[in-house]
């Protein structure tokens, strides 16, 4: 029998959701340990001394950090529907776009929401270009999900687009795109967030919105700071 699985997480984190989504899709039971990120536990600091971030997967005495690394570990370790495609080229495309989301989309999106003036304007333009790339990828696949007929690695990696994007835009009063734009992404977001395995590990929308509204000054300050 497989050793117990625990996940160190925090409310509202899309990275944590990724890990939960993967575990649920594989049918792996887990215990969620919720952190207060303003007051990190000994367990978190000991389990992820390098980054001190969530999620951290604890599988028996094994520790895995970084959400995309966790996704691949879950896929390789547990039975259940595969998250990554079988073909190496398709796998490389899934990894490419997941990396794109984390490294090219995240920062311009945050600046779109929380900066001002010229920076905000340019960031919004860049964010829309990024969304257009993803829209194109979805249309190319002609399927319900990036992963095909069922949810896969890239759908999970793109969860921020499916759920958090809307909430954060509402909290900041900034709209990246009109109702007509990016129809494939909108349809996909609806499919993803209403999936039976995914729904239970999405944070409550009202609570998430409140969270983003309450912390907006902090985020506005954060985007002003020079990069680490």
């Amino acid at each position: 029998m497989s050793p117990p699985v625990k996940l160190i997480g925090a409310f509202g984190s899309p990275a944590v959701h990724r890990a939960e989504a993967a575990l649920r899709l594989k049918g792996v039971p887990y215990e969620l340990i919720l952190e207060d990120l303003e007051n990190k536990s000994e367990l978190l600091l000991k389990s992820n001394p390098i980054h001190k971030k969530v999620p951290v997967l604890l599988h028996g005495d094994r520790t895995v950090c970084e959400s995309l690394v966790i996704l691949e570990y879950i896929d390789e370790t547990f039975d259940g529907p595969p998250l990554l495609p079988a073909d190496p080229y398709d796998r490389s495309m899934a990894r490419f776009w997941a990396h794109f989301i984390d490294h090219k989309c995240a920062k311009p999106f945050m600046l779109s929401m929380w900066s001002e003036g010229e920076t905000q304007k340019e960031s919004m333009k860049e964010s829309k270009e990024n969304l257009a790339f993803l829209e194109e990828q979805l249309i190319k696949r002609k399927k319900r999900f990036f992963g095909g007929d069922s949810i896969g690695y890239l759908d999970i990696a793109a969860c921020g687009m499916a759920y958090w994007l809307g909430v954060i835009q509402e909290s900041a009063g900034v709209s990246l795109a009109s109702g007509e734009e990016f129809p494939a992404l909108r349809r996909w977001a609806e499919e993803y967030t209403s999936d039976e395995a995914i729904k239970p590990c999405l944070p409550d929308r009202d609570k998430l919105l409140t969270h983003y509204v309450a912390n907006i000054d902090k985020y506005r300050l954060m985007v002003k700071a020079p990069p680490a």
Partner: protein
Amino acid sequence: MATAGGEVTCVDFWANGFGMRARIALRELGVAFRYVEEDLRSGDRSELVRRMNPVHRSIPILIHGGRPVCGSVNILEYVDETWGNDGGPRLLPRDPLQRAHARFWADFVDQKVFSTQTRFLKSKGAEKEAAKEELLDQLRRLEEVLGDKTFLAGDEFGFLDAVLIPFSSMFHGYEQHGGFSLETECPSLMRWVRRCKERDSVKSVLPDEDEMYELHKKWYGISE
């Protein structure tokens, strides 16, 4: 061996550390490939790069049977999955936990070490000193990962070694720039560097360290 699925091309620049990873991996697995040089010193990217990597317009790009694979770590995984087979060498460990650790540390190198070394090379005064200390800390952290193993993930040269070893071509530059000796600061890491450099794949790909530093001095406007 190893051109199943079509011709293999690697688009890269001789001094690109990320590209060195891809070229080392291809050689490690005995994959014949055509090397196309993209001169990063020119401001514009070639039509080939813009067509094969429209999203980032960066190199390295692996083109296999006409289809591009972009992102150095992504390329390593692709090379391993396409040409690494049960009979021969593999780049990534077999065990899922060891694979996760290799991927974690590769991400650490890209997220932390690369940006720190860039900041170290570009900055002056107090900022440079701070970046220097951070860089040394990170290299020591990687030394801990190495421990008393031969290579970063075990007995065999692999993915994580390919990820880090290109940085060693800048070690001479770091020493000149920072006024320290890596033999003193990270002796076991330096032994690992020498072990890696005994391999044909690494020897044939890593550039001359003086040339690397000269080029970076120009790029970053470093004056002695």
